[in-house]
């Protein structure tokens, strides 16, 4: 029987092997490394379905007081693996751009395929972490590998700018995280989340100081999930980073941030201020993300603001503390965001990543246009797509808990969303273009995009498999 920690170890070993092969076997086509990585991750993904259960987190000792293997964490390990596989497929499509950034050599392409594997390991540890120390370490593993990835095409000044911004602000948020953890440890004397919760239930604990620590932690996590007012970095970094990395940031980093948020907030729910604070952040995020997305003309920037907007909807789920609604929304978000980015990468190499570059895509490649259509209507929240059921579930929970303001703002911002997502659809189907070259799609990408389309529609029509997977 496989135990859960073996999964992360397997992923780490896979990453190191690929790095070593990259260093010593200089003659091979680097794309072979990517295929090997995809195959390896797929095997680990298969392994996640056969893991043994772990001890109950409440009485856990030793390693198990840092690490949990509950249903939620295993689900999100699968989520991280799946995201990484799709990102690697996108990276293969992106490899020509990368080569042009390092003229005359294959240098660097191998690392480009190897680093995401370490990010994936970091994400997998992160979703299992139930101790502040462990959360911090795995979050750093994720963040540091993202530093490398974001500024990978470093000859490009925009990328360099993105890398610097990400590095500086991310380091700042890490500092907040450590400071917050220090306050919480100082008040409760514990770093394990369950013991922190027990300590906070004790009336002798200094609640004010614990709350201050929680706010600092919230700042750091707000940076990860791109919640207002910690979203300043998002548009520039998303636009400047290599597009597969942007996809990875917007899905992987966000999902991990939300899982940690759900775990970290649990002990603090006894404090009424926490909920009010998150309601406020959710409102600001919804309004800012959706309004700022309205005038965007660049699709990468549009998706950056849309990622902020979706963080707002997810925060509604966090306010109601419904882990299942948040998880379902994240799965829907994974499918539709990766779908949009996959199309964007292929189209951007032919024309560019402005929305006007998508003019007449329906004639140039009906398949890509249809894929983008599904991605956009799902992001907007049209029925029979995963995005609609995600929003439905979130609003359902919010209505159940009578979060009137959040629901009203949410509904109005959904209307905004229709405007800016359908702008892309309009460009693809309504605008004509002088450029009528066909766009070719290679077999693997076609397969991946088809799988994402089917997944988006399947979840929109028959969501029960995800509900079953989340049942404890």
């Amino acid at each position: 029987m496989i135990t859960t920690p073996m999964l992360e170890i397997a992923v780490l070993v896979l990453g190191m092997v690929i790095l070593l092969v990259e260093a010593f076997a200089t003659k091979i086509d680097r794309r072979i490394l990517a295929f090997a990585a995809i195959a390896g991750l797929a095997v680990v993904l298969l392994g996640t379905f056969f893991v043994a259960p772990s001890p109950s987190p409440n009485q856990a000792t030793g390693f198990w007081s840092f690490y949990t293997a509950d249903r939620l964490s295993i689900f999100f390990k699968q989520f991280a693996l799946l995201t990484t596989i799709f990102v690697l497929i996108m990276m293969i499509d992106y490899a020509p751009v990368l080569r042009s950034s390092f003229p005359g050599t294959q240098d660097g392409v191998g690392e480009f395929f190897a680093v995401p594997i370490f990010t994936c390991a970091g994400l997998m540890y992160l979703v299992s972490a139930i101790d502040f120390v462990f959360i911090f370490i795995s979050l750093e593993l994720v963040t540091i590998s993202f530093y490398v990835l974001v500024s990978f095409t470093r000859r490009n000044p925009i990328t360099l700018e993105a890398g610097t911004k990400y590095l500086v602000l991310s380091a700042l948020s890490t500092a907040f995280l450590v400071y917050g953890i220090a306050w919480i440890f100082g008040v409760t004397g514990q770093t394990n989340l369950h013991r922190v919760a027990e300590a906070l239930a004790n009336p002798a604990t200094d609640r004010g100081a614990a709350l201050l620590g929680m706010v600092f932690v919230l700042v750091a996590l707000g940076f990860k999930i791109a919640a207002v007012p910690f979203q300043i970095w998002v548009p520039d970094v998303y636009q400047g980073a290599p597009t597969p990395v942007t996809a990875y940031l917007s899905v992987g980093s966000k999902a991990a941030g939300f899982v940690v948020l759900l775990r970290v907030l649990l002990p603090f729910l006894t404090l009424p201020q926490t909920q009010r604070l998150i309601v406020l952040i959710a409102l600001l995020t919804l309004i800012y993300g959706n309004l700022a997305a309205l005038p965007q003309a660049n699709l990468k920037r549009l998706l950056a603001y849309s990622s902020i907007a979706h963080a707002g909807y997810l925060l509604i789920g966090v306010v109601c503390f419904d882990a299942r609604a948040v998880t379902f929304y994240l799965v829907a978000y994974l499918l539709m965001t990766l779908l949009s980015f996959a199309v964007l990468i292929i189209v951007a190499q032919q024309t560019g990543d402005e929305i006007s570059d998508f003019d007449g895509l329906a004639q140039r490649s009906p398949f890509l246009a249809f894929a983008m259509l599904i991605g956009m209507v799902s992001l907007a929240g049209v029925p029979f797509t995963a995005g609609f059921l995600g929003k439905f579930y979130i609003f359902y929970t919010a209505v159940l808990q009578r979060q009137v303001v959040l629901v009203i703002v949410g509904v109005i911002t959904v209307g905004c969303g229709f405007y800016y997502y359908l702008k892309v659809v309009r460009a693809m189907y309504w605008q004509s273009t002088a450029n009528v070259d066909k766009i070719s799609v290679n077999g693997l990408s076609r397969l991946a995009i088809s799988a994402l389309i089917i997944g988006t529609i399947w979840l929109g029509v028959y969501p029960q498999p995800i509900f079953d997977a989340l049942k404890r």
Partner: protein
Amino acid sequence: MVLFTIFCPIIAAILIMVGAPARKTALAASVLTFAAALFLLASFGYGQPDFQHVTSFTISPEWRLSFTTGIDGLSLIMVLLAAIVTPAAVWFAGPIDKHENAFYACLLFISGGAIGAFASLDLFFFYAFHELALIPTFLLIGMWGTGNRVAAAWKITIYLAIGSFVLLLGLILLYQSVPAPLRSFDIRALTVAASLGQIAADAQHHIYLLLLIGFGILVSLFPFHTWAPEAYASAPAPAAMLHAGVLKKFGLYGLLRLAIPLLPEGARHWTTLLVVLLLGNIIYVGLVTIAQKRLDWMLGYSSVMHMGYIFLGIASAGILGVTGAAVLMFAHGVSIALLFALAGELRQRTGTLVFDELGGLARVMPFAGLAFGLGAFAAIGLPGFTNFAGEIMIFFGAFKNGWTMNGFHIFQIATVLALWGVVISTVYMLRAYRKTFMGTINDQWRQLVDLRPALRVPVALLVGALLCFGFFPQALVQIVTPGFRAYLTANNYLTGTQRCSHGAARRPRILTQYEEDAPQGRGYNRQ
């Protein structure tokens, strides 16, 4: 057979997108759907208030979500309306310059989505099918529209998207307002729960208001109507026919299906508001309609105005008014489709619909003139057309409404004012007819040709439907009445305000019938 009427257009649309010959497939599918609807009409069990031809597939047992379809009288006539208007719209579409396949696929998606919404017995699919039909409407206007099509498409998209989400909130609240063990997306189960008095009165107030605003935006209730005339003026004729004729009735259908049986307290609470708003539709929009200088805008506004009558019937909450509303929904759908179709043909021939540039066209297009005249008379509500039957029932029903109110109250005032609406619609319809088809003809129009014989088939279909049910309105009335009677008695609309406190003494028929075939152990069998 119900499933066939829903999925025949949808499958045909998918086939067309894949590459089947567009016009032939679309016509075949819509005629097949029409035949299936006629079969449903023929095999319908009259006098039964419950749903027939029920099929159900479970989607999520945990949420009690299932894909359930079935029809009662109200659903049947709405499905019939969709099945009559669709072949006419497809027939009128003709050759399309660009993306012909996508155009026909969109038309069939609207039709399939509308029929799906009318035949769904599950709140979720009721909503989702309507949304499925809305998206192609936006695309049709944006891609194939005329005039300021992009602005019109944006306006209708944003308006209706917000309307839909307000509606969605209302539906979620409705689902949650029922105590957890009875909770279900199944409309029949909700109806049973409501008739047992399980939906609290103050909850009903909120939910009804949300539903009224949500459905109101979709149906262009005053003051949420401004998207409609612009969208219809820009839309290609088949899209305007299907949306104004069929899809817009979804909101009214929703009020009749959900608000009346499930939320009687909410309906009572907001009656005054609804009556004021619908007078806005009839009087204010009616006057605006008179001021229009273009035929397409005038038709768009007139369709908004006529919604007011139907709302009056729904607001009256008596058996007569509600039945009249259902009949008028059908009649208005057919007549407005006919008028939009003819306006589209005129626009194709002349390139303009401005009244001042037209005139005397009946000399060169006598058949079109005759058909437009019949459509205009129907829209005014002349006896002999189905519209008359609907309107007269609404006026009588509203004057003697279901609420117990003393003296000369708002309903009587509203009815008197609404009667002036008939005068208003006579003014604008006859004026439009005179300016377009009568008077001196411009020299440039002397070469115009009349509708070609093939196009007379859909015109005959629509006019035939108007006249047939106009002379025999009882055919429609006896279909819808049993269902309404069951709801209205269940909620004691007719006998005053006392509620069925325990439901044991006088159990409404629909209740007992539903419980007989309700699955065991799901919580709504109380005895």
